[in-house]
């Protein structure tokens, strides 16, 4: 998804773009994503700024490729179970509001107006109208189609070609070299491997998540609904399984239930403890789900960097190499902003957000301070 967005904005900036992927379109984490375009789960700071930029860009795509990708500005609803959790959530939302987020407090009595089937024992919540959703695989495919970039799927990058002065000059693939003065690393969870091919370090790690997909239902869940503890889980550094329910209805009918987080490498095998926790959490929010059937579950691997921020921008260690990966569970949402920033960096313009917090070399032992 991030690669597709980079391709779109780079092509719109007038660049000649080639997209190389060892698998099919959306074959990695994108195809396993829920398509969350969230501002609600982000605390004030660089990631929230990127999310707000991205949300504006997604909205602008809504009439074109966004429509084909089932873009739906459905809004998010974060709920708290206890008065204490509600107080914390309300304070968190106040900070977000100061940073430009639309966040409307919702009392316990008003919750049924927004979500008639929510559990009755909740203390209250906050409504985030800017949260939206797309179908991620469709989004990636239609952005790629719209940008007109040449697509090389099923082609594996085996090396990054660098000149005598260290400048990046293209990529080597299993089906021949591709020359280019700039290479964008949008390999997601495998972005660390691609960086290594260029001789630079980028510590992207997989953080596994399961999603449950229910039988098709009438529209019983209107927003993206999650419990306030989700935010703490996202920010957690724990390797152990953490689950906090994120429940949403889709245009196509099924309800999607996320989001488990555990660091177990690239193990795709079914984890019943993970899906059990997801199911229990979802029923806690929407009791009617108890009798609703899950048709399938699948795992995806979020690309995770130690400080939970993505790597975006040029890599001073390998001139000509740009990174756009490590968005953890927010890659679909942050893709548009990332693509726009990368395109601005590629064309020598001044990116509209400060890229310093996203510097790819920030994990080096010296903090990347020495050139």
């Amino acid at each position, binding site marked *: 998804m991030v690669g597709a967005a980079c391709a779109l904005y780079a092509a719109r900036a007038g660049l000649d773009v080639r997209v190389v992927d060892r698998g099919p379109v959306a074959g990695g984490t994108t*195809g396993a994503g829920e398509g969350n375009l969230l501002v609600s789960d982000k605390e004030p700071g660089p990631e929230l700024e990127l999310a707000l930029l991205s949300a504006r860009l997604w909205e602008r795509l809504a009439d074109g490729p966004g429509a084909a990708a089932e873009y739906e500005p459905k809004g998010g609803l974060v709920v708290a179970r206890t008065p204490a959790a509600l107080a914390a959530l309300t304070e968190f939302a106040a900070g977000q509001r100061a940073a430009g987020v639309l966040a409307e407090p919702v009392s316990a009595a008003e919750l049924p107006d927004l979500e008639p089937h929510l559990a009755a024992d909740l203390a209250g919540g906050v409504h985030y109208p800017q949260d939206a959703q797309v179908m991620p695989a469709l989004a990636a*495919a239609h952005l790629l189609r719209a940008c007109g970039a040449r697509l090389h799927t099923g082609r594996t990058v085996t090396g990054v070609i660098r000149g005598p002065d260290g400048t990046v000059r293209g990529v080597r693939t299993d089906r021949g070299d591709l020359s280019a003065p700039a290479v964008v690393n949008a390999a997601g969870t495998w972005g660390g491997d691609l960086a290594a091919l260029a001789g630079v370090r980028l510590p992207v790690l997989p953080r596994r998540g399961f999603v449950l997909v229910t039988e*098709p239902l009438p529209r019983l869940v209107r927003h993206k609904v999650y419990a306030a503890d989700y935010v703490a889980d996202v920010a957690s550094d724990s390797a152990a399984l953490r689950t906090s329910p994120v429940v949403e209805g889709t245009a*196509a009918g099924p309800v999607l239930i996320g989001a488990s987080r555990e660091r177990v490498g690239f193990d795709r095998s*079914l984890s019943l403890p993970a899906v*059990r926790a997801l199911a229990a959490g979802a029923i806690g929010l929407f009791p009617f789900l108890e009798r609703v059937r899950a048709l399938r579950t699948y795992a995806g691997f979020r690309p995770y960097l130690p400080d939970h921020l993505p790597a975006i921008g040029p890599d001073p260690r390998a001139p000509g190499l740009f990174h756009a990966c490590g968005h953890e569970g927010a890659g679909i949402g942050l893709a548009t902003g990332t693509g726009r920033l990368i395109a601005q960096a590629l064309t020598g313009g001044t990116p509209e957000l400060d890229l310093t917090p996203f510097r790819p070399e920030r994990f080096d032992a010296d903090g990347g301070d020495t050139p």
Partner: protein
Amino acid sequence: MSERVHLAVVGAGPAGLAGALAAASRGVRVTLVDAGDRAGGQFYRQPAPALNARRPQALHHQWRTWRRLADGLARHTEAGYLTHLTGHHVWCVQRESDSLAVHALLGPEQEEGVTVHADAVLLATGGYERVLPFPGWTLPGVVTAGGAQAMLKGGLVLPGRTVVVAGTGPLLLPVATGLAAAGARVAALVESASPAALLRRAPGLAAQPGKLAEGVWYAGLLARHRVPVLARHTVVAAHGTDRLTAVTVAALDRTGRIRPGTARRIPCDTLAVGHGMLPHTDLAETLGCALAGTAVRVDAEQRTDVPGVWAAGEATGVGGAALALAEGHIAGRSAAARMRGTVPDPPAWAAADRARTRHRAFSTALDTVYAPPAGWAERIPDDTVVCRCEEVTAGEVRTAARTLGATDLRSAKLLTRAGMGWCQGRMCAPAVAGLTGCPLTAARRPFARPVPLGVLAGLPDAPDGPKAPGAPEDRAADDSSPAQQ
């Protein structure tokens, strides 16, 4: 209390029954876990007891084999070595620390869960029918050939009065003759393969005098019921608005293309159609068993590459009931020996081994004869629905393949929704593979059946850990299970 090792057999068709009986007679405690209300699977599907059929064999072949299996099941059950759990729809088998957990849903409603723990499992999950789309195949009145047979054998009902049986494969013969015997008018048996091709495969057939005799017997039955046989023909369309009223059939040339000018219309209210079978591999795949194409890969002892997991019957490659019996028998004997810590003695099952070799050779020969006619995928019109659940048309799949890069089953699913619905792609995968030009491979389906979220949420806590009284597990609990001590 028994100290016997415990084998769970999933599926009570020919393979599962043969495996369960072979293992139970050799000192293994067996739990036979099956979705049906009665043993038999699809091949030996029995009428509901309340229908009180005194002559069910009128709808069956090899009734003596069935009697032998049923008697063995009763004997071992009586002796306490075999527990037959009916109405248990297995949705997942998982390895736990020192056992395998078989998770099932109870009864036809499938709203309540139970878990059976065993030392090893034999997956005898059978198969389901492949149907390749054509215009009108979603009309009420169009059913799978096996579905018409299952409804007849189990419910003693006919799908309609005038039936066309069509497609390809050895199943069409018993379906046509069975429906005719039960009183339906079979207006035509439409088979896309040609008898000449069957004869060209004579080496495979010559080794099977029994099969040839069966063929002759079916020919006699077809003649007796005056069923017109249209070999090297295919159904090109089914007609009707809210239900089937007719089909158009046409002749195929030697290369499998439709011969112009041969189309004709046959009025009917039912079309029973099938193009062969596909294995149920979901449980094996989720356990991590290696697959070969669309089937579970097994060794000479019917072992998968996951320790403690055997597989037999259609799940390991479609080949019919006789092959399933041989494979199940070998699996049961191998499991019995290995679970008790001894080395199996293959010469002891030499007869089953020979039968297995013979039937596999035969089914390989049949596979080449009964291949779908060339060009079937190109012939599907753009406006024909291929994914029945999500109503995705052939044209949508083609467009996604051409313009969005949907050139494999997973991408096609993500980009068109074909395969995302209730059946999880079991019905449409062959067509989507044909339309996108990719090979048909077994999908990953961690849930072999839809599972209520309440059942997932109520899964037992720690593997092999203490269970709360009244926990769902206790319903199927067997206090002699080593896994529960």
